[in-house]
C-alpha cells in the first residue's frame, strides 16, 4: 500500500524547470520587494533592469513570448507615451529644453520624471506578469492557503477564474440566439445600446440556477465544516527558498534605506 509521501509525490505539481517549480510565495515576495524598491530607487533605470531580469527568468521558463506580449502595451503606454507627455507638460524652474513643437517644449527634466514613473510601473508589472506566466492560479492559491488564506477565499478565487471563460462561452451562444430573434446589433449607437439588455439579462438570470446548485453542492460536501482540508495538488516549499525570501527582504530593506537617502536627502 502506498504511503502518504508516495501519494504526495505522484500528485506533486513539478514541471522539471527551476523557474516554473519555484514556490509561488517566492515569486510573490519578489513582486513585493520590487514594488517597495522601485519607490525608493534613486534612478529610473531600476525598472528597466527589473524588466530585463524578469524577461530572462521568463525565457528560462519558456514563456517569453507571452511575457513580451503582455508587456508590449505597458512599454508603449507607460514608458513611451508617459515619458513624452511628462516631457512636454512638466513645469518647473531652470528646465533644459531640447525640442520645440509649436508652443510646447520638451525638457530633459520632464523626460527624467516620465522615465521615473514608467520605471515604477515596470518594476511592479514585470514581476507580476512573470508570476502569472510561470505559476498557475491553483499553485498561487495553495501557497496562499499555506500562509493562512481561508478555504472560502481560495474557492472564490479559483471559481472566478473558472467561471469567466464559461460565462463568456454562454454569452456567445445567447448573442447568436438573440440575433436570430432579430435583435439588431449593428447600426447607430442607440440601436447597439438597445441590444445590450436582451443579451445580458438571460445570461444573468439563467446563471442564478447554477449558483443555487453550487451552494447546495458545497454545503453537501461539508465545505463549511471546521476541519483541516486535504488537497489533490501538492506544492512544496524548501528551506533554501525560505532562507532566500528572508534574504530578499533584508536586501530590499537595505536598498530602500540607501536608495531612499540618495533619492530624497542627498
Amino acid at each position, binding site marked *: 500500500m502506498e504511503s502518504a509521501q508516495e501519494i504526495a509525490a505522484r500528485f506533486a505539481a513539478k514541471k522539471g524547470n527551476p523557474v516554473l517549480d519555484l514556490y509561488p510565495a517566492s515569486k510573490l515576495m519578489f513582486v513585493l520587494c520590487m514594488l517597495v524598491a522601485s519607490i525608493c530607487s534613486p534612478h529610473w533605470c531600476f525598472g528597466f533592469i527589473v524588466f530585463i531580469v524578469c524577461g530572462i527568468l521568463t525565457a528560462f521558463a519558456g514563456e517569453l513570448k507571452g511575457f513580451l506580449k*503582455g508587456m508590449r*502595451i*505597458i512599454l508603449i*503606454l*507607460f514608458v513611451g*507615451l*508617459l515619458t513624452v*507627455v*511628462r516631457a*512636454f*507638460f512638466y513645469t518647473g524652474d531652470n528646465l533644459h529644453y531640447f525640442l520645440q513643437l509649436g508652443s*510646447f517644449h520638451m525638457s530633459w527634466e520632464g523626460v527624467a520624471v*516620465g522615465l521615473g*514613473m514608467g520605471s*515604477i*510601473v515596470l518594476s*511592479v*508589472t514585470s514581476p*507580476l*506578469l512573470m508570476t*502569472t506566466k510561470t505559476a498557475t*492560479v491553483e499553485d498561487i492559491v495553495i501557497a496562499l492557503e499555506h500562509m493562512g488564506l481561508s478555504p*472560502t477565499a481560495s474557492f*472564490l*478565487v479559483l*471559481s*472566478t*477564474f*473558472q*467561471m*469567466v471563460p*464559461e*460565462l*463568456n462561452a454562454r*454569452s456567445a451562444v445567447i*448573442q447568436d440566439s438573440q440575433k436570430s430573434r432579430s435583435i439588431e*446589433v449593428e447600426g447607430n*449607437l442607440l440601436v*447597439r*445600446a438597445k*441590444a*445590450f*439588455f436582451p*443579451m*445580458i*439579462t438571460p*445570461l*444573468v*438570470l439563467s*446563471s*442564478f440556477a*447554477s*449558483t*443555487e446548485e*453550487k*451552494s447546495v453542492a*458545497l*454545503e453537501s460536501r461539508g*465545505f*463549511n465544516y471546521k476541519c483541516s482540508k486535504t488537497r489533490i495538488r501538492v506544492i512544496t516549499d524548501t528551506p533554501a527558498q525560505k532562507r532566500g525570501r528572508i534574504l530578499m527582504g533584508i536586501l530590499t530593506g537595505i536598498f530602500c534605506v540607501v536608495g531612499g537617502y540618495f533619492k530624497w536627502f542627498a
Partner: protein
Amino acid sequence: MSDKPKKKLEMITVALIPFAVAINFVGYFLASSLKLPMYLDSIGTYIVAATCGWLPGLITGILTGVLEGVSYPPSMAYAINCAACGVVIGLLASKGWMKKFLPALGVGLVVTLTSVLISTPITAFLFGGITETGNSVIAIALQAAGFGLIPAVIVSTVLTEALDKVLVAIVAFFIIKAISDRFLSKLPLGHLYLKKSVVQASEDDD
C-alpha cells in the same frame, strides 16, 4: 412576526460572488463587441452588492481588479476603486436606494463620485494620467489646453465614468427586478426587492 422572510445565509453569497465577477467581464466584452463607448464592467458588482450587502460587493470589486490584473497588471491598482464602489452600492442598497428607479440613478451618481475620488489619484500619481482607455487622450488634450494634471484627469474620468456608472445602475436595477422572488428570498438583502404581493401574503399568513 418579522416582515423579513427567512433567508439562506452565507453559502449562496459565496457561490454568487464568482458569478458576479464573471458578469463584470462579460458586460465589458459585450459592450466592446457592440462597440459601445462605455465599459459596463460593474453590473455583477451592482447585483451582488444590492442583493447581498457591502462586504460581498467589496470582495467582488477586489476579485474583479485582481482578475483584470492577471492579464494587464496596471488594472490591479484600480481594484481598490472597484471595491469602494461595491461598498458604496451595498450601503446605499441596504437603505433601499435600489428599490426604485430614481434612487437607483442616485446610486449611479454616488458611485461615479466615489470612482472619480479614488481613481483620480491612482491615474494621476501612479500612471501620470495615462491609461489604456480613451481617458488618456482626453487628459492629454486638456493638459495641452493648459489644465493641470489633476484637473485634466478629474474631467476625463467624470466624462467617461458618469455615463457608464449610471447606465450600469439602470441595467442592474431592471435585472434585480427580473430575479425570481424564490431566489431573492435566499439573499441577505433580497427581502428589499420582493414583490408586494409576496410580502403581503406572508404577513397575512401570520
